[in-house]
């Protein structure tokens, strides 16, 4: 509860900063360092799978299709959607045209206000916390 309140307070404070300010650079850099170091500190020896098993896991697509058809098709749709986002963003970035806005320029409209920037920071913090300490194997 205290961590959530601290995260909300930080988000609101950070929402009032300009992206080119020294305070914004230092605060985001410190958050990134804290999240990465806590991922190592809390996660040592607590991963669910090895890197090799994780890479090989999705490869037998036919077996997955036979055993869990809807889940496998669902994953394939996710892959297509993520590739669409990445591909269209790259295409827009390469062309540098006002007719082709990049994803970050669209997000920039949201983060141009204090409330929008604070909300985006809060979502980013929550995702970082989940990736850092979430879904660990019990010791």
């Amino acid at each position: 509860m205290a961590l959530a309140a601290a995260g909300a307070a930080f988000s609101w404070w950070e929402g009032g900063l300009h992206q080119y300010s020294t305070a914004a650079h230092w605060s985001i850099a410190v958050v990134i360092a804290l999240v990465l170091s806590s991922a190592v500190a809390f996660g040592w020896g607590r991963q669910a799978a090895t890197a090799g098993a994780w890479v090989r896991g999705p490869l037998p697509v036919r077996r997955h299709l036979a055993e869990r058809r809807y889940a496998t098709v669902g994953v394939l749709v996710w892959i297509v959607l993520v590739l669409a986002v990445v591909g269209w963003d790259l295409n827009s970035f390469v062309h540098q045209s006002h007719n082709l806005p990049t994803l970050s320029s669209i997000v920039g409209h949201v983060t141009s206000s204090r409330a929008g920037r604070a909300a985006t920071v809060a979502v980013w913090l929550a995702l970082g916390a989940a990736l850092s300490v979430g879904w660990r194997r019990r010791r």
Partner: protein
Amino acid sequence: MTPGGYVWIGIGAALAIWIVASALRRDIPGPIAVVRWFAQSWLGRTLALCAWAGAGWHLFCQRP
């Protein structure tokens, strides 16, 4: 609205439809399941954290 903006709306709508579909059907993995899959191993977690850190720096320290 620019032509590229219409494409983003289409991609956003497809994402929204798929997120709703995953919420309605238990056997379709949702966005949390996708993040959880990356968190299964150190390699996936590191890749996701690098993307997270890069996105944060870009959005909050570089782009308007």
